[in-house]
């Protein structure tokens, strides 16, 4: 869907039009230059989440100290969908755990709706709903009781809660399972229950750590649409995901972290500027030309994948070189299909994290 055959085209976000007025988000170092003082004031005034120089270290016996979060600073505006991306062990979950009061920061500060997570954790908890990474359900309770029990913690009970639960179970395809205990459900259904609970309450901020794990594509799409609706209503949503396309579709702003550090932040377009000159090529031959893999590998691509007679490669090259390469490859065999597109978020992600690992980040 994102690609068009037979021509160069710049990809754009699939999601609906921007949901909230959004200060141009670019790498942190450039914020002042781009947005100016007024925007910075507005950003600070309306931020649902503020994180400043956050550090979290872990000490393990007879092992060197690990800096899981290493000086992160960012803000998330009210009503925004904010994506926290990074490779495994990048510090995403630790950051979420600090913001949701599950862990104390070693230094720095963070606040949710103006309440400091370390000093006023209860005030923070009143304002957040959290889907943690692991599947969490009351296994001995029915699906309905899972929703009602959860809602009660947030002061939602009685007929209003029951009515709401019925609607949400319908929406999440859980109505036929309403009376079944969670322990009798599959992992995917349990995850559904876990995510569905978030819509039983109206906390202004929602954290979703790998929320779509185990969900089928149809439900995932429905949940993503529901998240957009919630954001339009003013709820702030922070999500972490390994599925880059989810972030690409959903997020107003994305923060890419690696080894606990910020390596890029901004909306999708701003991030693409960081990765200007990255192109994705996809060519399908009737017969794969000999030696093509080695030939393409010699160009040090960001990504190279060959499946059957289809070659997919992401390269950082001048546009004219890309066109020349397409032409050259076309000489090597009979091309059935060709696609060229600008960098996807995945390409940007890979490039930036690799660059950071190589020590040349920012």
């Amino acid at each position, binding site marked *: 869907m994102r690609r068009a055959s037979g021509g160069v085209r710049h990809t754009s976000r699939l999601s609906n039009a921007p949901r909230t007025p959004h200060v141009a988000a670019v790498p942190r170092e450039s914020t002042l230059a781009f947005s100016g003082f007024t925007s910075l004031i507005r950003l600070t005034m309306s931020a649902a989440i503020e994180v400043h120089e956050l550090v979290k270290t872990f000490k393990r016996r007879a092992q060197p100290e690990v800096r899981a979060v290493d000086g992160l600073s960012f803000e998330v505006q009210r009503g925004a969908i904010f994506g926290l991306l990074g490779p495994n062990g990048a510090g995403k979950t630790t950051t979420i755990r600090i913001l949701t009061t599950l862990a104390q920061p070693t230094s720095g500060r963070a606040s949710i709706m103006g309440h400091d997570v370390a000093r006023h954790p209860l005030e923070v908890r*009143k304002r957040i709903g959290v889907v943690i990474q692991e*599947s*969490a359900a009351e296994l001995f*309770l029915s699906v309905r009781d899972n929703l009602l029990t959860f809602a009660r*913690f947030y002061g939602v009970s009685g007929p209003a809660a029951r009515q709401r639960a019925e609607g949400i179970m319908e929406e999440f395809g859980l109505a036929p399972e309403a009376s079944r205990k969670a322990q009798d459900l599959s992992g995917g259904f349990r995850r559904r229950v876990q995510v569905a609970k978030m819509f039983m309450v109206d906390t202004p901020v929602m954290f979703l750590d790998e929320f779509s794990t185990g969900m089928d594509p149809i439900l995932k799409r429905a949940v993503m649409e529901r998240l957009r609706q919630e954001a339009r209503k003013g709820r702030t949503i922070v999500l972490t995901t390994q599925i880059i396309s989810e972030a690409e579709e959903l997020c107003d702003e994305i923060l890419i972290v690696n080894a606990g550090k910020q390596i890029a932040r901004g909306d999708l377009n701003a991030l693409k500027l960081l990765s200007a000159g990255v192109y994705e090529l996809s060519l399908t031959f009737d017969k794969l030309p000999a030696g093509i893999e080695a030939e393409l590998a010699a160009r040090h691509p960001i990504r190279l994948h060959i499946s059957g007679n289809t070659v997919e490669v992401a390269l950082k090259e001048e546009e004219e070189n890309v066109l020349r390469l397409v032409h050259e490859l076309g000489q090597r065999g009979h091309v059935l299909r060709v696609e060229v597109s600008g960098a996807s978020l995945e390409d940007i992600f890979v490039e930036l994290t690799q660059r950071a690992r190589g020590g040349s980040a920012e």
Partner: protein
Amino acid sequence: MLAMRISALLAVLNREMKIRATNLTFIFWDVAYPLAYLMVFGVAMEKAMGFTVPGVDVDYNAFFLAGVLGMASFAIASNTAWSFFMDRDNGIFYEMLTYPMSRGEYLFGKVLFNIVVALVQALITVVLAGLLLGIPLTLSRIPLLFAAVSLGTAGWFFFYAIFALKMRRNDAFNTVTSIFYFVFLFASSMFYPLDPLPPLFRIFGYANPITWHVDVLRYATIGLGDPGTILLESCAFIAFGLVAFRVAIHALRNQE
């Protein structure tokens, strides 16, 4: 603020109650177990060994009644603390730590339902013990009995919670509880009076919080004990419970 605190406690109570209510056998056993223990072990000891408790001049059933109530509180507390492992396995434990309640409310709420169970258990046990075994009860001290059952269940739960929250393996926790059962229960006044025992055993027994708890229960049920000593033991047990609560809160705050 108070309304919020009560609603948080009730939310945890509601959750614990719903989970326990999914298995009626558990509830039956919760309620019947101390009486069953008394009817089997207590009656058997008295009939088979044919003794009254030396130095205190009551029959063994009457003496052991406070013992089974103390044992029941101890067992409920241990089972409730073990449920932290179940919650961890279900993944719900960490999610619950993000719910709008303080760590103290979480701990109190969790023990609240079990205090209710312990009170029902104690009431049924003392009434049926009086009717079936003819144990003479001091009815005016029933409020003291309820207070002792409630504080005892809470105190032992907070104590066990420290270990359940600090340990990551439930088999390790089971080992610890087995040791505690052995050490605390048998080196106490639960099954026998401490005075005739060897000096070292006696010192250990009097320093044992189970002894403090059981002595108060015994005073509340059959009126046995010196009021001054009982007051001292009550204060000591409350202090023990408060310290355990503080340490358990600390352990809960360090769940990283």
